[in-house]
């Protein structure tokens, strides 16, 4: 018999084995997302005279594996807002559901004043900042594009830390290094936006998508592009990069298999 009273009436270790404490006691708090899993790469956007262009390719990578090749990363919210998602794809899908429920709620309560791009940007910024403050971040970098309350072109970004900023041209991920300099060459500041036509802006963004495909190993030549103007959203989701020229590749030396 066991002479320790606190053990009486309990299953005997020598018969049933020691109690498995792992069921109720862990040493660390709940594990939240520590790193993204399936990811989308750059999103590129630029303002022009009377609207905004935004583009992102249709690839979702699993590390270095090109896992899903038909993932649409631009989301039309209404006739004047499009959101582009970079980063974790499952978190993008969560945000997509969140925006769906927001849209339904908004449409029930009022019809006169639909949410514009600035509203949606503020909303998403608060969501992202809340989640980072809970140490449970949504691993995305978003670009919110469209028209603001005065029907002026609007372009701003939110990242997983809740950091927000706005600029006449924006690009996330690899695009911040590769596309942003190209975009800034044509649209250096807010004043330059007035001199850029829709055709020029679209061509500029397409050029950026091409440069990104040349140099970003996690990119693809199939992409989505959206143009938002006062006449609505024109979203194309099955575009293919045109006029690719790999002639430059022949001249590249110094890494890969050949050394010099």
């Amino acid at each position, binding site marked *: 018999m066991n002479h320790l009273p606190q053990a009486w009436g309990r299953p005997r270790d020598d018969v049933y084995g020691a109690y498995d404490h792992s069921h109720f006691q862990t040493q660390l708090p709940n594990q939240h997302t520590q790193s993204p899993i399936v990811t989308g790469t750059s999103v590129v956007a630029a303002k022009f005279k009377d609207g905004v262009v935004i583009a992102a390719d249709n690839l979702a990578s699993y590390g270095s594996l090109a896992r899903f090749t038909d993932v649409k990363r631009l989301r039309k919210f209404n006739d004047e807002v499009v959101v582009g998602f970079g980063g974790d794809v499952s978190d993008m899908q969560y945000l997509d559901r969140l925006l769906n429920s927001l849209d339904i709620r908004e449409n029930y309560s009022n019809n006169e004043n639909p949410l514009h791009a600035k509203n949606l940007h503020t909303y998403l910024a608060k969501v992202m900042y809340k989640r980072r403050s809970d140490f449970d971040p949504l691993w995305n970098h978003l670009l919110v594009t469209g028209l603001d309350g005065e029907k002026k072109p609007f372009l701003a970004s939110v990242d997983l830390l809740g950091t*927000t900023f706005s600029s006449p041209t924006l690009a996330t991920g690899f695009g911040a290094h590769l596309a942003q300099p190209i975009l800034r060459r044509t649209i250096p500041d807010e004043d330059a936006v007035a001199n850029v036509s829709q055709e020029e802006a679209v061509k500029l963004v397409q050029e950026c998508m091409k440069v990104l495909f040349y140099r970003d190993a996690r990119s693809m030549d199939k992409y989505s592009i959206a143009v938002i103007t006062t006449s609505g959203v024109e979203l194309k989701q099955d575009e293919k990069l045109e006029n690719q020229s790999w002639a430059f590749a022949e001249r590249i030396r110094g890494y890969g298999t050949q050394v010099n």
Partner: protein
Amino acid sequence: MAAIFSGAPPQGGPGYSFNQTPRTAPSGLRQHHGFYPYTDNGGSTLGISGADFTILAGDTRSTSGYNINTRYAPKLFKIGGEGPDNKNARIVLSVVGFAADGDALKERLDTIVKMYKYQHGKEMSVAACAQRLSHILYNKRFFPYYVHAILGGLDEEGRGALYSYDPVGSYEREQCRAAGAAASLIMPFLDNQVNFKNQYEPGSGTGHDLQAKVAAPLPRDTVEELVRDAFTSAVERHIEVGDGLQMMIITRDGIQETLTPLKQD
């Protein structure tokens, strides 16, 4: 009460059996906490108070690493006043460090100052606002707002008032303060030019006979010039500072705002 009847053995006492049972889950190799909730968005701010005015200034560049996020992201915010564009506000807050925390802090202080007016029927004084800001920061000291804040306005006597803060709410009223990326470049310049540190009366003697030049509030145009000089110099030597210089000058007539270009390189 629940603890008494839980049946769990007393902590540190013998286990259920003569065989000691493990008390905690087996600790295998766990993944390290990988998410860091802060970043530094660069930039610099500075504030100088005078006899009947306060000037706050900040550059408008926002960075992450070597990237420039945008060339126009203001770090100066009007606090209080009416409506979303803070009409007739008399207090200015500048925040530099982690921009998302800065925006959150601004938003909280702004609503508090506006609510104060609704509830008390009078404007909040700068001294009260300054103390409230300290409390907001201190309340979050275990997960701080990663910002260096400077608050400016006019005190009850109409003199320039300037308060500076650390991220956990320590604060102090000062004549001048530089904060942010180029603080270590600007602050010594300000010590010398505003508080006349290491300046002596010419011909007052040598060694211990030297008479220190006494600091007095500077006129407004001199201060504006100092601010411009401080920033043009900081731009030359710090890569996170540049693009634009935003200034807010608080006088008894209200807040005057200016934006002048800085080098973009």
